[in-house]
């Protein structure tokens, strides 16, 4: 066999291995989505989405309260996290080389690596034990901490994309820093900021441990921010580990709803990013 032949054969073998690796990875991951859709579609319908969980042994029932609870807690989390994180990102963008910026960036990166379970335990110790009750508010606060690094770092990235020539032009026209930020930088980066927030919301919506430790769950409609509250991930966790076949089936239904919401958020974010890039 000539040298070239040998090299070509070796190359073929390794390329085939790569294709197989990619094929296997994509196959396994598609299998997960396949099961979620097949088993989920079997139970999802309008009444499943809108009714309370049924007691053991009673057929029917659904995930209405968990769906609302998740929406509420993710909403509370976003309300807390978005303004603070964007303000922090503006600081990072305006003072890129200051010591405080370096520390804040480092803190965000550290926070992004902290297991969400540790964040849950922190809020559990500070809020749940002190107030004596699991609550939707504690859940929202835990989720806001989960969102912080995603929003801050992506927002800084997006703000930095606004060209310095435009910033200088704005300053040359006599605009103050504040006017430049509000009239040029924030509007210019709006698309990117929205993308970051959407991805943070998608991440928070799927978190189980932080919500389990802070809001626990409930079998009733929520009527206050200060009570234990159901959420989709915790419901999936409880139902999946329960011994009842009905509940296990409902876990797949809830998983389908959760995955669908998260996938839609991600796809939309990608589209928004594509649009705002084209405009630029």
């Amino acid at each position: 066999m000539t040298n070239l032949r040998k090299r070509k054969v070796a190359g073929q073998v390794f390329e085939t291995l790569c294709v197989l690796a990619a094929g296997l990875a994509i196959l396994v991951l598609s299998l997960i989505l396949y099961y979620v859709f097949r088993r989920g579609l079997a139970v999802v319908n309008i009444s499943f989405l809108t009714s309370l969980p049924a007691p053991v042994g009673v057929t029917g029932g659904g995930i209405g309260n968990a769906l609302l609870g998740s929406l509420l807690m993710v909403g509370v989390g976003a309300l807390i996290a978005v303004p603070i994180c964007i303000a922090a990102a503006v600081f990072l963008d305006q003072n890129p080389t200051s010591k405080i910026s370096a520390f804040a960036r480092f803190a965000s990166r550290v926070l992004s690596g902290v297991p969400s379970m540790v964040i849950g335990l922190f809020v559990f110790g500070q809020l749940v034990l002190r107030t004596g009750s699991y609550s939707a508010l504690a859940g929202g606060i835990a989720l806001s901490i989960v969102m912080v690094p995603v929003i801050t770092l992506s927002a800084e990235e997006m703000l930095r994309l606004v060209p310095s020539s435009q910033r200088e032009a704005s300053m040359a026209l006599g605009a103050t820093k504040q006017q430049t930020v509000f009239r040029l930088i924030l509007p210019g980066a709006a698309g990117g900021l929205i993308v970051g927030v959407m991805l943070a919301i998608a991440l928070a919506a799927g978190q189980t441990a932080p919500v389990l430790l802070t809001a626990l769950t409930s079998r009733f409609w929520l009527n206050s921010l200060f009570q234990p509250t159901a959420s989709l991930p915790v419901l999936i966790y409880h139902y999946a580990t329960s011994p009842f076949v009905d509940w296990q089936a409902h876990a797949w239904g809830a998983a389908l709803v959760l995955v669908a919401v998260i996938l839609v958020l991600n796809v939309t974010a990608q589209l928004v990013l594509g649009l705002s890039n084209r405009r630029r």
Partner: protein
Amino acid sequence: MRANTREGLFHYITLFAALGLIALVLGIFLVVTMQAAPAWRAFGVTFLTTSIWDPMRNEFGVVPALLGTLATAVLALAVATPLSIGAAVFLSEIVPQRLRRPLSFMVELLAAVPSVVYGLWGLFVLAPWLRTGLGQFLAEHLGFLPVFAGPSLGIGVLTASLVLAIMVMPTITAISGEVMRAVPTELREAMFALGATRWEVVTKVILPSSKPGIVGAILLGLGRAIGEAIAVTMVIGNANLIPVSLLAPAQTMASLIVNEFPEAFDLHLSALLLLATLLFLITLAINLIAAWFFYRPSQTAEVAVKGSLWAKLLRKGT
């Protein structure tokens, strides 16, 4: 004058937000550590060297959970790393241009699937299959080896490791693919012009110049595997046993916290917080090392990880 005060106010608001971030992270670390202090004072090093975990008698030893975390994470990475790098090479170097974007996007989407869904799938699809398939086979034919000592229960170390492997695969694939694509096209073209085969381009140029990024990606996957709580809790069987057999149930530090926090108070709670502190420190160390790899200037190609990668990584979940 009025404009000046407003300007100052605006500056201070953003300054406070940035300081708030720093305070938040310091606060989480300090509070968790302080609450863990009673347990550390009570047990000291024996916490790390004994294996009995009995809240009733106030005995807390973390060896089984520590080893369980280590075993599942290392096994998961051992399965996920070659597959992910192979898939990343495929996505970055081999796949036709038209398919690259949709396939890469699909990998990114899979990184966004919540861990509880991976756990659900592991419990109801993977575990039954392992119980009667691979697990059964290993227990019957290799059961004389301690690592495969049966019975095959379906849930246990092997199942938890495989679920973790599946969970970290999209993360490692997406990031290392990104890093490989950042290698300048000129380098590839130069190699091809010299008569190199595609495989030689990959092994001699692409992989060496993107090595720091790939190692960083693997470390981030490791951090995720160590900190993962829910999916592992669902499939590991939650028994306080030192993981010897892959087929036996065990537990990890994170799964121990999930299982016990509702009934914990006083010293028991403090012991759980000490576990959380350990998790915090371990993942912090891993992330610092990963960051060091990402920011190290590489010689051949200026691997484009100037920070935009961080924003991308973050999206891949915690």
